[in-house]
């Protein structure tokens, strides 16, 4: 659906040159929800503006839906832009028009006649659940409603691709969830490919199939959301994951856990294959070790369970040791010590490492 090949974008601000996007190549598949995550200034907003040709790349090529946009004259770019929906963090609705007038605007640009426009606007407002607000002004709406209008407007000309630039960043958590659910419906029911730009990992985990992590204008990591979560390679990715999950105890929390509990404290990564929470419980029972959950969290990433549990293990020292070894063969285990044993540190099927813990993950 979208093909970026060696795309670079530089801005000249006075005498200084800023490279906002630096040699990015990626493919976005038809029908997927693709996330681009990064901190402010990572270049993600520029990237999305390159995709709908609001900006022209300094180097590289951009193609959308089989059409190479790079190098096309402005006149040819306009219809291409009209074929890509765009929603904004600040909604960017026209205050001089009603809700219906805003949704109708792209249809006017596309040259629709009055009757078909009215029918399409009614259909769109119905889809986003704002049929009763058609005659109101944007200033009379809540933030979530404004974004629904933005989505209806972006979908007006039935684009195959929708770009969402921090579409939920100005909204409260509950409204964010509603808007993300609406975007998912747009993807599932209308088959629209969506590119979601965000700095919130929770948006990625809730909505996206794949994600690109941007840092300093580059895509530093790209893959299935679950794989990125399970095996982050870059520190910036780990920091984002840590913001989405608070499942791992920070060092000071570990200290308090060791003071509070008599048994051995271990953190066990939960995943959907060899280390479901059921499997973990089974292993411990098999070794005759009792466990109590003292910290942790499991969430869904890409519709699969993901997180970790910190357990207090009690039982014969040998049993506890073999149980930990058995768990470590299946998943990543961090041994915090306790019950007279010094901390054993992280271990797991891939050896030490795995997910970063402690200060690094907690940022």
């Amino acid at each position: 659906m979208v093909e970026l090949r060696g795309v670079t974008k530089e801005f000249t601000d006075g005498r200084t040159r800023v490279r906002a996007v630096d040699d990015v190549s990626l493919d976005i598949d038809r029908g997927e929800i693709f996330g681009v995550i990064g901190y402010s200034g990572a270049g993600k907003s520029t990237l999305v503006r390159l995709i709908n040709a609001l900006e022209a790349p300094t180097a590289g090529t951009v193609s959308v839906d089989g059409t190479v946009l790079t190098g096309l004259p402005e006149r040819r770019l306009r219809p291409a832009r009209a074929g890509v929906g765009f929603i904004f963090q600040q909604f960017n609705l026209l205050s001089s028009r009603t809700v219906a007038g805003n949704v109708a605007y792209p249809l006017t640009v596309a040259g629709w006649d009055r009757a078909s426009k009215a029918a399409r606007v009614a259909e769109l407002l119905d889809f986003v659940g704002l049929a009763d607000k058609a005659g109101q002004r944007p200033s009379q709406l809540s933030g979530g409603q404004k974004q629904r209008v933005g989505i209806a407007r972006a979908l007006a000309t039935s684009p195959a691709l929708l770009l969402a630039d921090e579409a939920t960043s100005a909204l409260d958590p509950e409204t964010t969830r509603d808007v993300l659910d609406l975007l998912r419906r747009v993807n599932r029911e209308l088959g629209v490919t969506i590119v979601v730009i965000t700095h919130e990992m929770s948006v990625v985990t809730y909505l996206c199939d794949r994600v690109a992590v941007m840092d300093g204008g580059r895509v530093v990591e790209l893959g299935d959301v679950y794989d990125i979560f399970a095996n982050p390679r870059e520190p910036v990715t780990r920091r984002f994951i840590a913001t989405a999950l608070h499942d791992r105890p920070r060092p000071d929390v570990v200290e308090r856990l060791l003071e509070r509990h008599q048994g051995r404290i271990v953190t066990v990564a939960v995943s959907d294959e060899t280390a479901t929470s059921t499997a973990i419980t089974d292993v411990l029972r098999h070794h005759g070790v009792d466990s109590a959950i003292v910290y942790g969290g499991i969430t869904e990433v890409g519709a699969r369970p993901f997180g970790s549990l910190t357990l207090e293990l009690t039982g014969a020292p040998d049993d506890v040791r073999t149980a930990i070894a058995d768990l470590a063969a299946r998943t990543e285990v961090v041994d915090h010590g306790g019950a007279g044993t010094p901390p054993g540190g992280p271990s797991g099927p891939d050896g030490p490492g795995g997910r970063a813990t402690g200060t690094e993950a907690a940022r």
Partner: protein
Amino acid sequence: MSWSELGPLLGQALGQTLYMVVGTLLVGGVLGLVLGVALYVSRPRNLLPNRAVAGVLNVLVNTVRPIPFIIFVTAVQPAAIAVTGTSYGPTYALFAMAVMATFATSRIVEQNLVALDPGVVEAARAMGAGPVRIITTVLIPEALGPLILGYTFLFVAIVDMSAVVGAVAGGGLGNFAIVYGYQRYDYAVTWLTVAVIVVIVQLAQALGNLLARRVLRR
């Protein structure tokens, strides 16, 4: 002179002033809107960025605007005679007023457009709208409230200009106050003229406020 003689003269002067002011507002307002939009869209990184056009327009506006109006009127006399075919009276004065008002309006328009959220322009661009459509369906409608207030401000400035041209054969209330008030040491006439002008300005300001409030209440 008695009031019965002055009355019709005042009425005539009022008519001339309204003619000059409304005429200037129409001609200068429309041309100023065009020039102001051109100043705005030719800015760097704007809708139609063009360094040469922006440079020329800015120099032009900055050259004309600071010229004291009474000097400007006399300086453009040959052009005014050529265009209007006369060397005195309200129509002759209207020429210089309209030119000056065009430049004054252009800055007011430009400033109100600069204050707009660039996001709405970007949204229109993202929907495939071209520059002309964006100017007519986004920029001007979105800035309409402040523009109405800007034009109200302009109206008052034009009334001021109309009084100045009275000193150099333009006619109108300015001329009336000078000839029948100042030169005859008749303060009552001068004050009466002032009162008439104050009423005109008050009415215009009230109308402007009302219109702007209606537009801004959305």
